[in-house]
């Protein structure tokens, strides 16, 4: 029952995000600030993780190919498939559920407990629109983050294969191009856009509707991370079944 009210509350919030919009001159500033906080400040960790996880995927694949009948270029092929299909969109999003999500929940939650949200409402501002819409718009750049992750994951795989002596550059690149299905990229970016919406809104919901003090802000961030991850995993399953199944 409480889950149902929470889900209902979430969709009511989404509806209110698009009502009574904030003046454009103010909204614009908020969007730029969110792009910096959410997108720009996440690039470092995405670059780091993507490069090394791509490397690990390549090494693991190479080590599992004992059979001499299996061609070496498979390392490139497997790296491309796992990075584009799952690692870059889904794994990165789970990490972002922690990074962006806790930032969003704690910043909105702090505004709630210090009555800053009440202050906005008293002035006649639609606080849900003011706080959540800039995040949704900023996260429209999230596919760019995931594209970076795809690219660096593959570069990491290539570097690990070549410099670790698991494959040569020509084989790896042949594998990358082998049986390439463009729709897989489309599928990955469709997921990414849905994940971006989840990343912007579920942590906002947990921050906006929290009660209590500083301690509860911490708890809300943890809860938000759990539910954002669950939503990402479920949506991942559903889109995969619908688009590839």
């Amino acid at each position, binding site marked *: 029952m409480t889950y149902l009210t929470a889900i209902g509350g979430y969709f009511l919030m989404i509806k209110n995000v698009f009502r*009574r919009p*904030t*003046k454009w*001159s*103010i909204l614009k500033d908020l969007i730029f*600030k969110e792009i910096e906080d959410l997108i720009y400040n996440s690039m470092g960790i995405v670059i780091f993780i993507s490069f090394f996880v791509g490397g690990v995927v390549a090494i693991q694949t190479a080590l599992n190919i004992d059979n001499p009948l299996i061609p070496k270029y498979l390392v490139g092929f497997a790296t491309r498939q796992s990075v584009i299909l799952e690692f870059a969109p889904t794994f990165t999003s789970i990490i972002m559920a922690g990074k962006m999500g806790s930032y969003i929940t704690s910043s909105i939650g*702090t505004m709630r407990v*210090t*009555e*800053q949200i*009440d*202050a906005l*409402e*008293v*002035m*006649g*501002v639609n606080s849900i629109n003011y706080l959540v819409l800039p995040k949704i718009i900023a996260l429209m750049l999230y596919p760019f983050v995931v594209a970076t992750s795809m690219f660096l994951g593959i570069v990491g795989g290539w570097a690990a294969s070549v410099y670790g002596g698991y494959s040569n550059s020509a084989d790896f690149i042949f594998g990358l191009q082998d049986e390439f299905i463009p729709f897989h990229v489309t599928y990955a970016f469709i997921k990414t856009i849905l994940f971006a919406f989840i990343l912007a809104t579920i942590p906002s919901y947990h921050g906006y509707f929290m009660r209590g003090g500083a301690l509860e802000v911490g708890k809300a961030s943890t809860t938000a991370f759990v539910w954002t991850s669950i939503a990402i995993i479920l949506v991942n399953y559903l889109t995969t079944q619908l688009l590839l199944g």
Partner: protein
Amino acid sequence: MIEVDNLRKSFGDTQVLKGITTTFESGKTNLIIGQSGSGKTVFLKSLLGLHTPDDGTISYSGKPYSEMDIDERVGLRQKIGMVFQGSALFDSMTVEENVMFPLRMFTKMSKSERQDRADMVLKRVNLVNAHKRFPAEISGGMQKRVAIARAIVNRPKYLFCDEPNSGLDPKTAIVIDNLVNEITKEFEITTVINTHDMNSVMEIGEKIVFLRKGLKEWEGSNKEIFKTDNEAVTDFVYSSDLFKKVRQMYIEERN
């Protein structure tokens, strides 16, 4: 003028406001007093529409809030200034940006006009060299003054303050009380202040509503409050030793 009729509000099973009726006139400083937990904040937030009452009506200049459409409500809100207990300044903005925020949001003023108005109200609350600082970098008393500046910058018709003196030293508290009182007179504002500070009651309490356990126990002026026989009120008023002694002297003098 704000008229409150039979206002009720519960959270779950706990009744916080049990039917409150009173009137707040414009150009007057109205105080809501009562022990902490008596429902002052809930009362104020219900007036503002931050809590939806379970029953009763709240009318602004004769028009019930519940009958206003969304545009009327937004219009009314823009004529309201509120000073929250913890100041509620936007911590991502500087002092000056906080004060200019309502102007930026709701007026067509140019940047320099907004700047001038912010300078003016900040001077008014005696803050002259904190414009570029962030709320976290100034003292609690300064934050309160910024909150007042932000509340009055767009010339509100209604001003609400939730415990404006809490956490301030007595001297600053008096400065703030007098400031709010002056502004109320000058702009004919309807001002409602929550407080449990007896100094405020004596200084600026033109109309006082005493809340106890969710009910209006007593109402009157600061001239009357020291003479009432209502025990709950005298208990509250004379809760400090100093006031007990003053009352003792008053009674002795009378006999």
